[in-house]
């Protein structure tokens, strides 16, 4: 039988087979390959087969069957190779994605990479995606166009620049993160609220830890709580992000612009991707927490150091206080003996006794030493001011009482102008008492006998003003001296304003104490 096709020849000449091009030249000498790759698809070969089947031979009918089977096998192999190629690309993509995700600890950067991967053509190629986090809703993110025009502009830009996934993610993080968040604020807010509703499909998928592809069939069977209407798409997928059995968030993705249907394979690919993203999110969150804890530890450590320094300082100050107190004890007893006996003797001397003047000097000197001692001790006490609510008028009355004897001796009158409606002041009663007493003593020491001192209190916006003044200005009066110095020091430490005003007519000391608690 004469055959039309060249399948019977071991070797053929150039141009003998119309299906063999110059690039396939090697097939001219390789019969089996030539049959599988060219002859099976050649019309002349089909014609030869038809003629062969007409021959009355049982095997003649088997050959076309074998060839058909071989064709099917070949197609399956081609399909598997395509699928394999696609899987290889996917693995390669996931590998790149994992590498990128592992290089960052910044949560927003992780989210940027994840969202770029979902929507990029080089990634999963979804039109639009929303990522909602369970713990940090301020990081919720949307990505994609809101309309067709925006979609075209974006895709054109991407195709023009041919960015890699890393470049796209980096660009998104640096320039678009905030604007995309703002752009999808309404949708993100709504989805965030729905996620908190335990019965909603979003929440159910999140806590069920299984992804779902929602299409018309699913909607008809189970419903989707109106989510497809809200998103304005027919199909979408919900991908829970689960890490160590903990739901960290959920991704909602759809093809809002192209309306391309989502396949089961899309869902499976995204599921693998979801694990990587969930781990990256969890790691970034843990890193954030770690940083916070480190900052707290650093702060606590600084506070501890400060407190240790304060303790050392206080121990030193306590020692100073102890020494001062001990000195006071050593001085006060002999001082009491000297002053006490001098007073006792003075009282028994007649006015014309020549010793009277000497005894008076002893009494005055002892009194001065008493005052200095009190000032030094009060200064030491000032290391630990104890503030509380006190009546300033009561304080003035007490001071006036304490100085009563001196005032009588000197025939000096103290005029008190103390309004009754004053609020309580927030002060260290002992220290302010000391200050007021010292100020009045300072005035008394330089005033001639028979003078007058005025003490007033009044409420002002800045606090209660306590003023002691004398008219006219005492001759040769100075506002120096240890007592005033100690007062100034005490008041400064408590941030209490202290002013001394001297005019030709008057000298006044003014203290403004706070009404409110001040730490």
């Amino acid at each position: 039988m004469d055959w039309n096709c060249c399948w019977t020849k071991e070797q053929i000449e150039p141009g003998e087979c119309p299906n063999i091009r110059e690039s396939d030249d090697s097939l001219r000498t390789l019969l089996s390959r030539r049959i599988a790759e060219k002859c099976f698809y050649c019309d002349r070969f089909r014609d030869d087969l038809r003629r062969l089947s007409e021959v009355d031979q049982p095997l003649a009918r088997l050959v076309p069957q074998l060839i058909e089977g071989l064709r099917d096998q070949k197609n399956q192999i081609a399909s598997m190779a395509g699928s394999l190629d696609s899987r290889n690309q996917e693995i390669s993509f996931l590998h790149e994605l994992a590498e990128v995700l592992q290089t960052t600890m910044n949560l927003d950067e992780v989210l940027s990479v994840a969202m770029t991967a979902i929507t990029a053509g080089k990634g999963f190629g979804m039109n639009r995606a929303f990522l909602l986090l369970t713990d940090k809703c301020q990081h919720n993110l949307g990505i994609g166009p809101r309309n067709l025009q925006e979609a075209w502009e974006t895709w054109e830009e991407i195709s023009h620049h041919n960015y890699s996934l890393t470049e796209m993610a980096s660009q998104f993080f640096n320039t678009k993160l905030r604007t995309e968040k703002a752009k999808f604020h309404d949708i993100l807010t709504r989805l965030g609220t729905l996620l908190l509703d335990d019965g909603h499909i979003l929440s159910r998928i999140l806590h069920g830890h299984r992804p779902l592809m929602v299409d018309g069939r699913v909607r008809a069977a189970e419903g989707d709580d109106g989510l497809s209407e809200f998103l304005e798409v027919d199909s979408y997928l919900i991908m829970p992000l689960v890490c160590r059995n903990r739901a960290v968030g959920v991704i909602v993705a759809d093809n809002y612009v192209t309306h391309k249907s989502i396949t089961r394979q899309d869902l499976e690919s995204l599921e693998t991707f979801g694990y990587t993203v969930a781990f990256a999110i969890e790691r970034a969150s843990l890193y954030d927490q770690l940083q916070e804890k480190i900052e707290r530890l650093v702060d606590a450590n600084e506070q501890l150091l400060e407190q240790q320094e304060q303790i050392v300082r206080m121990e030193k100050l306590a020692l100073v206080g102890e020494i001062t107190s001990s000195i006071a004890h050593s001085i006060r007893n002999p001082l009491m003996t000297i002053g006490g006996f001098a007073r006792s003797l003075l009282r028994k001397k007649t006015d014309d006794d020549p010793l009277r003047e000497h005894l008076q000097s002893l009494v005055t000197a002892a009194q001065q030493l008493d005052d200095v001692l009190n000032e030094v001790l009060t200064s030491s006490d000032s290391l630990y001011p104890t503030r509380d609510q006190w009546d300033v008028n009561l304080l003035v009355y007490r001071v006036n009482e304490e100085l009563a004897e001196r005032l009588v001796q000197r025939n000096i009158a103290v005029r008190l102008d103390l309004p009754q409606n004053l609020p309580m002041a927030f002060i260290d009663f002992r220290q302010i008492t000391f200050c007021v007493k010292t100020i009045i003593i300072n005035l008394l020491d330089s005033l001639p006998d028979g003078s007058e001192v005025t003490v007033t209190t009044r409420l002002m916006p800045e606090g209660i003003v306590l003023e002691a003044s004398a008219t006219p200005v005492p001759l040769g009066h100075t506002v120096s001296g240890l007592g005033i110095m100690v007062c100034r020091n005490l008041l400064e430490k408590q941030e209490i304003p202290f002013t001394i005003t001297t005019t030709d007519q008057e000298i006044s000391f003014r203290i403004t104490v706070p009404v409110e608690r001040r730490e």
Partner: protein
Amino acid sequence: MARLLVIDDEANIRLLYAQELGDEGYEVVTAATVNEALQRLDEQSFDLVVLDIKLKSESGLDLLQQIVRERHNLPVILCSAFSCYKDDFSAWLADGYVVKSSNIEELKVEIDKVLGKKTHRG
């Protein structure tokens, strides 16, 4: 005439108290130590005790507690060179607190006040 017991480890101070308070019309008995004071308290009755806080190695505050416990009608005025004990809880048991100074007038005023009030504890 009110009888006072003055307890102070300084002989000069005891002498001063005896003279000054005696001039005021009080009968003054003095003691230098806790034991001596307890002995005086057992021997006779007093209207008021003037007590120093630091008595050499002994504590006037301990004695104050004992007096308050055993003779709770007997008023005590603490008279010390230390002002810091004013804030000490144990010192609050006393009826008065005077810081020693060259002028004994404050103590006299305090004694008058406490005796005038006829303080009764319990």
